[in-house]
């Protein structure tokens, strides 16, 4: 436990790089002359982020390793997600500089905050212990609160930041409370220990109902549910999404892309680690009342709400915010499938691809939106976008591409990603582990989700139609900048590449799935018939024993020391 090796450091190298770069940026900001162009900081940030992405790609281990005394898992999932978020960070950083200049808020801490947020996400997905998870989550979240409220002069930005902050804090509280219940199993906060306890032969006692009359909430389930809800808040899934449209409308435009794209997939990845690890037990995932059910209903609500409301929006960023709710729903659909052994690998792969496609496209889209505008005014309504595609073909084309990707249409990345994602639902429906009726519901949800996605697609099309439709809006122009061009170019390239040749990303996804599902703690679980046993063991255990098992034990020291 005590002391660490170079291997430990290597595992967190990308996160360390990001943090160090963030500090360096802060120092540069402090010691530079006032006339020093902040653009350079953007390049430094982007370079550092890309370096971190490259490093995490290079150091990705062939076999999952556990570092830092079991608190950090060093595996493909962490590396891949770190790489994605870092790339999104680089795109955002490059795309922000011109925006910040125009709004006269270009200061170095902006880039530092971006880097810290990325580092936090990296830590969060690598966590193998709830303490580390919480640390990573908060590191990212606090930085994002600050970024959201970054335009201090703006009424909107502050309010957006506060709403995000309060809901985020609520999420943190729920998370900690949920972790408390899970810790109650063994006293440990480690994923492996909790998983082992839930998988132990006597695990049934944690779930038994002592009275059989009063609705009783088994502690591990409640803990799981609270943790899940905390993450649903973070990733803005319905009905916990309410902060998102406001926050996205108020935050600095390029930041929004990062927040909604990278933030979302980091959260989902952390969930995947939990649900493929400690929570991968039949009692918790359960067909009727486990996290698959929660995920199902949250997915349903998100898809319906997100798509339908997005359709009615007149403001572009708000529309994107609502449709990001729908995207959260799609990701949750894949999470449902994770609960089914046959579909698990496919769902992980799909989420990796979808996450990559979505984070890049969203970041790109918001960068382009941020690049439009004049003086201090930003593009907000659809009308203001009118004719910009004609006037600035490259930017218009790029924005169209990102929106096409988000709509799941070819040739952009979103098409294959959506395909993979929805097919996992069908695969799950074929699985044996969940009740047939639920499987059918899942398949219909996928069909319904596809149909409803047209509503979202229409919302995107409307933007494209405005881009090319009418005469140019007088008030709006494009603010060209090399950094912006680079950011958009990078995002566009990635979107097209993943759209036409998604094979490489899918291979990463396969790798992630393999490592996640064959992790030592989990490996035994699904392959042996044993996990099914506790459910069977429940009824066979006499009630008296069940009662005894959860008998209230007095604390060893009855009175707490004062």
């Amino acid at each position, binding site marked *: 436990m005590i002391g660490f090796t170079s291997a430990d450091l290597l595992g967190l190298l990308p996160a360390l790089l990001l943090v160090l770069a963030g500090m360096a940026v802060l120092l540069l900001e402090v010691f530079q002359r006032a006339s020093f162009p902040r653009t350079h900081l953007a390049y430094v940030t982007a370079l550092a982020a890309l370096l971190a992405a490259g490093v995490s790609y290079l150091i990705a281990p062939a076999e999952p390793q556990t570092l830092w005394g079991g608190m950090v898992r060093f595996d493909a999932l962490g590396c891949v997600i770190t790489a994605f978020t870092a790339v999104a960070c680089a795109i955002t950083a490059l795309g922000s500089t011109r925006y910040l200049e125009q709004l006269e808020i270009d200061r170095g801490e902006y880039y530092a905050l971006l880097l810290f947020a990325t580092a936090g996400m990296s830590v969060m997905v690598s966590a193998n212990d709830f303490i580390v998870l919480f640390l990573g989550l908060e590191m990212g979240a606090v930085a994002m609160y600050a970024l959201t409220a970054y335009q201090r002069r703006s009424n909107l930005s502050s309010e957006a930041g506060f709403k995000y902050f309060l809901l985020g804090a609520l999420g943190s509280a729920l998370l900690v409370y949920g972790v408390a219940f899970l810790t109650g199993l063994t006293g440990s906060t480690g994923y492996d220990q909790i998983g082992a306890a839930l998988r132990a032969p006597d695990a049934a006692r944690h779930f038994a109902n002592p009275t059989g009359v009063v609705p009783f909430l088994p502690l591990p389930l409640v803990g799981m549910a609270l943790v899940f809800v905390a993450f649903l808040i973070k990733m803005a899934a319905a009905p916990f999404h309410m902060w998102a449209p406001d926050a996205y409308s108020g935050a600095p435009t390029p930041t929004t892309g990062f927040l909604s794209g990278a933030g979302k997939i980091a959260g989902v990845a952390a969930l995947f680690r939990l649900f493929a690890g400690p929570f991968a037990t039949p009692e918790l995932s359960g067909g009727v009342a486990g996290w698959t059910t929660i995920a199902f209903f949250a997915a349903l609500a998100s898809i319906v709400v997100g798509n339908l409301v997005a359709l009615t929006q007149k403001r572009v960023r708000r529309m994107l915010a609502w449709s990001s709710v729908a995207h959260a729903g799609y990701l949750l659909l894949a999470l449902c499938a994770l609960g089914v052994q046959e579909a698990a690998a*496919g769902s992980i*792969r799909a989420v990796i691809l979808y996450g990559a496609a979505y984070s890049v496209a969203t970041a790109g889209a918001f960068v382009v939106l941020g690049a439009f505008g004049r003086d201090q005014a930003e593009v907000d309504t659809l009308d203001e976008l009118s004719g910009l595609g*004609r006037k600035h*073909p490259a930017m218009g*084309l790029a924005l*169209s591409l990102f929106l*096409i990707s988000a709509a799941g*249409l*070819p*040739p952009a990345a979103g*098409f*294959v990603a959506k*395909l*993979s994602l*929805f*097919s996992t639902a*069908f*695969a799950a429906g*074929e699985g044996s582990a969940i009740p047939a009726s639920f499987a059918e519901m899942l*398949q219909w949800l*996928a*069909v319904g989700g*596809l*149909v409803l*996605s*047209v509503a979202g*697609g*229409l919302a995107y*099309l*409307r933007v*494209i*139609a405005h881009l*090319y*439709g009418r005469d140019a809006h007088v008030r709006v122009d494009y603010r060209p900048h090399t950094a912006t061009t680079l950011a958009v170019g990078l995002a566009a390239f990635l979107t097209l590449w993943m759209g036409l*040749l*998604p*094979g490489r990303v*899918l*291979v990463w*996804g*396969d790798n992630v799935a393999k490592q996640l599902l064959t992790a030592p703690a989990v490996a035994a679980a699904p392959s042996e018939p044993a996990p099914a046993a506790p459910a069977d063991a429940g009824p066979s255990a006499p009630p008296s024993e069940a009662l005894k098992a959860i008998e209230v034990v007095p604390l060893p020291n009855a009175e707490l020391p004062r």
Partner: protein
Amino acid sequence: MSASMPWLTLIVFSPLAGALLLAFVPSEHKEAHRMVGGFFALLSLLFFLPVAAGFDASQAGLQFTTAAENAAWIPSIGARYHLGIDGLSLWLVGLTTVLGVVAAMAGVTSIQTASRTYYAGLLTLLTAVLGALCSVDLLLFALFWELMLLPLALLVGSWGDRQRVAAATKLFVVTLVCSMPMMAAIFYLWVKGGSTSFDLADIAATAQGLPVGVQQALFLAFCLAFFVKLPIPPLHTWLPEAHAQTSTAGSFVLGAIVFQAGTYGLVRFAMPLFPDAVYWAAPAIGILSVIAIVYGAIIAVTQRDMKKMIAFSSVSHLGFITLGLFAINQVGVTGALVQSLAHSVTAGALFLLAGVLIDRYESRSVDDYGGLAAKMPVFALLFVFLIMAYAGVPGLIGFVGEFLVLAATAGSWAFSLNPGNAHFGSLPTGPDTTALILASLAGLRVVVGAIYLLGLTKRLMLGSITGSRFSKATDVTWAEAAPLLPLVLLSLWVGLQPGFFTSRMDASVKGLLSGLAEHATLAKETAETMAGQQSDVESWNRDGRSPEAWPLQRKQAAANGEAPAAEGSAAQPGAAHQGGHP
């Protein structure tokens, strides 16, 4: 066969190359856009020529697939870059390349603003349509299929009347919504097959192993996507408005090019994947098609907006495609494919003709015109010629498709409401009452079509000249007539020599039908158990008259050196007669 060159890839992607090139042409160089657009569309046509020349008509399977065109695309999910062409798709591809050139020419007069957008959109759309028409891999097909939507919406929504954006939006939404169940069905089949392959053959094997109920549901999902493209009522509602609102070139693209993908989807995917469902659904689809035919024609009668009239007429005309396909016999499928070509050529031409007037006089209402023949004799000649081609006058393209489909319908057993009548051979199998009724009703288009087409001719061309603005009307210019000439030539060529086209379809059509007959296990069982329950008329057909009596069969038998009494089914591949022959 010169399989060394990846001709199909060249056909599919040369338009896209042009679209990319256009990105580097400054937006004010209208001429350059036209040149690039026309050149790359023509390039695609030129690449088609070796395919047409080297096509092996005796082969039923896919051809021109080089190693590079059957390669792994996304290996981890088993998607392949797999292109191929056979008799079913050969002419659809060929015609699309021709129509691409025509559309490029049409843009010269019709598109005056933002020509770069037009040509880029057109070329992208061409790649999407051609890609869909050549795809054998379902994921690749889905990709091209969805890729069609945006350029199409762009082409429809960018030029035309005030409501064009609304019309384009409706088009986009309705088609996208209806294609989503197909996407779901593709994913489902892929998953069912072990998530390893999207290739047609593998997916087909998976599909045919599913319970019949599931097959039927999946089949309907596929049909929904293709029917909305064709379109079959009540899925047609996007069409008239889109045509009315958009520009001439947009109408042409919409009316002549895009629906071909629907035809192709049916023959390449929907039908071979679910043979049992095909037989199950054939009567209903037959009735639906006839409703489309009659309904569209009747509505067209009172349309004052000439583009809407042609649009509703298209609904009617396109009903013949599904009617022919689901007659499930050689004449029908061939006829449906020819009808697909015919509709492209003739309806496309009519949209161009209407466009000449609309672009000049800015009115779509037929009431604003009259007596133009006196001032525009060449135009009137073209107009009457193409109207007649469209109305199905023999010797021109429109006749071939319509006639074959009607013949196939009248002689089809597939529409029989008594499943015992299902017949698994080729034509002729004798008349079925339902089929006769369907053929008669579908034939009403011949009459009603004449009513509105001649009415249109009269109101536009004939009678006395109305309005002073026509008194100085001049005849068509070369730029206006140029896009029409290839269509006129095609109308004549296909009309006078349809055998040139159909002979290259024969083997593939037979392959499709024998595949259907072979794999429709449930339909066959039902037919056998119900074979006893027939009316007198039907049993006369089945028992009283043996196929050997058919003169043609005897001629063929004699040519093969067989005794005339040889089993008649020998001349009918895949035939499975239930009744006893004397």
